């Protein structure tokens, strides 16, 4: 049997037990280079987890020490999703980077984030001196639009399954309780409000780090291009990559969609690792 070295674990950070999975590098490289993966948040995390695991394994095979983790209230970590705030999730990224640096004894750290995890990774990277580069897969760059899209999906689902249909998706924001239910996840109202008010570019602290911005899906993304230009104007090297792929973090109504194929994103993984290989100066990624 092959030696399997993936290591699930819990670590303590800011009063919570957070879950992580460590993927040791399959090639010994000096200096030791690490990657922290920031998953999507909410319902998008459920559907995209297979791709994140695939990427972690490929990155480890390429020579990176890799750490996937769950924010508090998410995945396997402690806490209730409805209690978590955006600031806490940002802080959890810091906690994960610190724990990973210590646990894996890495010399350099990069980050990769998907969707809102990409937003969180971008913001955290600008505040964490240890982070040297960041990859953003279809990051949420206009959070109030992201919230609006979730509200629309929840509005449709709500009207489908209840006998008391709503007339407008914004009624979801004023239903009883301290949370807003969005596709099975109860988001704290303060978190939804914070997201709605968030201006990602203004929130970037000081100088950022080299970034790869990946637009996923068909066509071009004005927002991803705008982020690249904004970062370049600040003197931050950034590249834009457009990968034509099916959206793998949301449910699709297409009956012909092959769910098994959706769980593997070979082109995305390949192109991302090629950039990381050059950025982290790893021996060539095949």
């Amino acid at each position, binding site marked *: *049997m*092959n030696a*399997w070295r*993936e290591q*699930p*674990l*819990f670590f303590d950070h800011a009063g919570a*037990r957070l*879950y992580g*999975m460590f993927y040791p590098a399959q090639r010994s490289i000096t200096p030791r280079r690490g990657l922290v993966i920031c998953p999507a948040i909410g*319902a998008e995390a*459920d*559907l995209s*987890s*297979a791709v994140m*695991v695939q990427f972690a394994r490929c990155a480890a095979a390429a020579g990176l020490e890799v750490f996937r983790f769950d924010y508090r209230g*998410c*995945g*396997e970590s*402690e806490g209730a*999703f409805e209690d978590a705030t955006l600031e806490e999730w940002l802080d959890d990224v810091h906690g994960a980077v610190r724990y990973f640096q210590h646990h894996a004894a890495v010399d350099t750290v990069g980050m990769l984030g998907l969707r809102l995890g990409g937003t969180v990774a971008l913001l955290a990277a600008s505040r964490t001196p240890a982070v040297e580069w960041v990859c953003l897969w279809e990051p949420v760059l206009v959070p109030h639009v992201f919230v609006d899209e979730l509200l629309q999906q929840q509005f*449709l*689902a709500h*009207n*489908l*399954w*209840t*006998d008391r*249909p709503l007339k407008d998706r914004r009624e979801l924001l004023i239903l009883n309780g301290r*949370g807003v*239910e969005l*596709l*099975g*996840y*109860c988001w704290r109202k303060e978190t939804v409000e914070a997201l709605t008010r968030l201006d990602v570019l203004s929130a970037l602290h000081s100088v950022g780090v080299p970034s790869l911005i990946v637009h996923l899906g068909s066509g071009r993304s004005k927002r991803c291009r705008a982020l690249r230009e904004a970062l370049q104007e600040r003197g931050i090297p950034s590249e834009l990559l457009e990968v034509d792929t099916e959206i793998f973090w949301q*449910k699709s*109504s297409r009956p012909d969609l092959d*769910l*098994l194929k959706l*769980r593997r994103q070979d082109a995305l993984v390949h192109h991302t690792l090629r950039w990381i290989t050059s950025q982290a100066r790893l021996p060539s990624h095949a």
Partner: protein
Amino acid sequence: MPERPITFTSGSHHLVGILHEPIAAATPRRGVLFFSPGVQAAKAGPARSYVRLARSLASSGWCAFRFDFPGLGESEGELPPSFQVDEFSPEVTRAVTTAAVQTFCREAHIDEVVFYGLCGGARTALNAAGVDGRVTGLVLLGLPLMRSGEVGWPAPEKLDVRGYLRKARQWVYWKRFLTLQSDYQFFRKALWHLVRGRLAERSRVDSGVAHNLLETLKRGQRLLFLYGDRDPFYKAFQVGLQPQLSRLNGSAPVDYACRIIPAASHAFPQAAAQERLIEEMLAWLAARYPAQSPVRVG
């Protein structure tokens, strides 16, 4: 709350699970083994529903173990190209479940296990129900009774029936319909879903599922069915399966129950449905598996 990750092997694969142990364990010690729902969710379950339930179980004195089958979640392996939606081969099901039950019983020091699964996880749990004599019950959520394509799933196109009835009384909307300005794709899809729903009510329950259910009951294992009242499989259960179960009940005592969660769909994504689901399950477990006395662990 004590939770720890556990890795174990089945064949050539390393599998990952999370063990939940109660702070105050009931006597005797028993556990619930979770079967993940399938390709669209890992051992945390959709919207972390498995995590919440496992923690509720631990608070009530039960052990719980959630794990991923090979090729799912964080476990090693790849799903075969021929993988039918959320259904593993009998050989894999048997081997993996045996390993999971052995690991769970050893790590949690338990001798009695209840299987739990949602949708594809319910199918897998049912298929594996006979692998180990320590399995005394099954909790099956949204158990698919036929292939998903045979079911009339509600579609967003069916949403606004009242709205469309209102529009039918207004000439301006008829004008749009007759002058090719309406969305005909929408009407086509809505009609198709309506027809398919009617056809589904006449669909037969998968004979393999029915057979496994009857064998489970004959073995003396307890069964709890949980369905959302909006789950198309619930209709199939009422029409196709319940009469068979009733006939069995006449010949020998069998232990099964069915609980319906109001305003809940197939995967119970609604927060209120999840809370209700946890209540129903804990109540059933308390009734079927009475504890002698809670004992403090350690």
